[in-house]
């Protein structure tokens, strides 16, 4: 009995530390909440790498800011660079340029350099889908290989370039 009372009396400062830890944990949770909402519904950063969007986007890793508001309301237009999930690999996202919206008639040439005769294809983009292509026509895995992409797979639109610092600035309508 005496031991229990001594233990409880020594817990005083301990209780204060627990209270402070809890307050800090709540603050961290609130910050994380705000960050998460901003990232999912407003502005989200992406890192791009690869050659498929040369010369607009360099092959080295570049950081961009993307916004999710226009894509949520369907306000995308021809020439926008969008981040979308690949139809045949749901865990991978790519950045490509929007070349065709639903109802457009797309004419494209088969991208294989090895073929001597380049075959011309024509395609009508179905309802609810978009056609994306990389700017580097020779080295881009895009709608010419995996077909039109349902609009539901588009995540966000590139609008601001962050790195390298000398290129910091607006990336609208490039």
């Amino acid at each position, binding site marked *: 009995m005496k031991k229990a009372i001594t233990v409880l009396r020594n817990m005083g400062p301990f209780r204060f530390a627990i209270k402070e830890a809890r307050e800090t944990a709540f603050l961290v949770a*609130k910050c994380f*909440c705000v960050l998460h*909402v901003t990232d999912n519904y407003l502005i989200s950063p992406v890192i791009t790498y690869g050659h498929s969007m040369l010369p607009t986007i360099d092959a080295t890793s570049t950081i961009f800011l993307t916004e999710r508001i226009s894509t949520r309301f*369907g306000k995308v237009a021809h020439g926008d660079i969008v981040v979308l*999930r*690949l*139809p*045949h*690999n*749901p865990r991978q996202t790519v950045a490509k340029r929007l070349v065709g919206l639903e109802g457009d008639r797309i004419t494209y040439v088969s991208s294989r350099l090895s073929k001597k005769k380049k075959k011309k294809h024509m395609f009508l983009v*179905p*309802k*609810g*889908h978009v056609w994306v292509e990389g700017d580097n026509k020779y080295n881009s895995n895009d709608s010419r290989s995996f077909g039109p992409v*349902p*609009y*539901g*797979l588009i995540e966000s639109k590139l609008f601001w370039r962050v790195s390298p610092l000398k290129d910091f600035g607006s990336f609208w309508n490039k």
Partner: protein
Amino acid sequence: MSFMNHIRTVAKEALDRTSIIAKFLCCLHFTSSYLCSPTHAYGPSMLPTLNIAGDVVLVEHLSPRIGKVGYGDLVLVRSPLNPNRNLTKRVVAMEGDTVTYFDPLNSDSSRNAVVPKGHVWIQGDNIYASRDSRHFGPVPYGLIKGKVFFRVWPPSSFGLLDN
């Protein structure tokens, strides 16, 4: 002077109340987007499993993220034809399978299709009145929003929805 203090207390109380509401909405949003959310499914395409007048069902959002969507699952999927609409259909085939399907409205014989990588084949239970993969093709796995597992309304059919 006391008027300013009064306003200050009222403003503080308003801020406290608003922050409680904001925290509650936060929790609600988190649960609704990542754990479980209700949805209203209506139409004849899933008879007899779901009623034509409309059922309120619970959808869990964890399974598609961890890849646990399989054969016979009822899924909530974003429509490939209209991204603002969600469809409730059943997964009939996964990637790599060859589907033999019968579309009574368009042809008399059954047809075959191969489901490409990263896609699933969805069909409504009522093949006579359902617009599904037989019409718009296999659907990318990335469009699956959740798995339907429980029915809340009408109360007579309250309970788990099995395969």
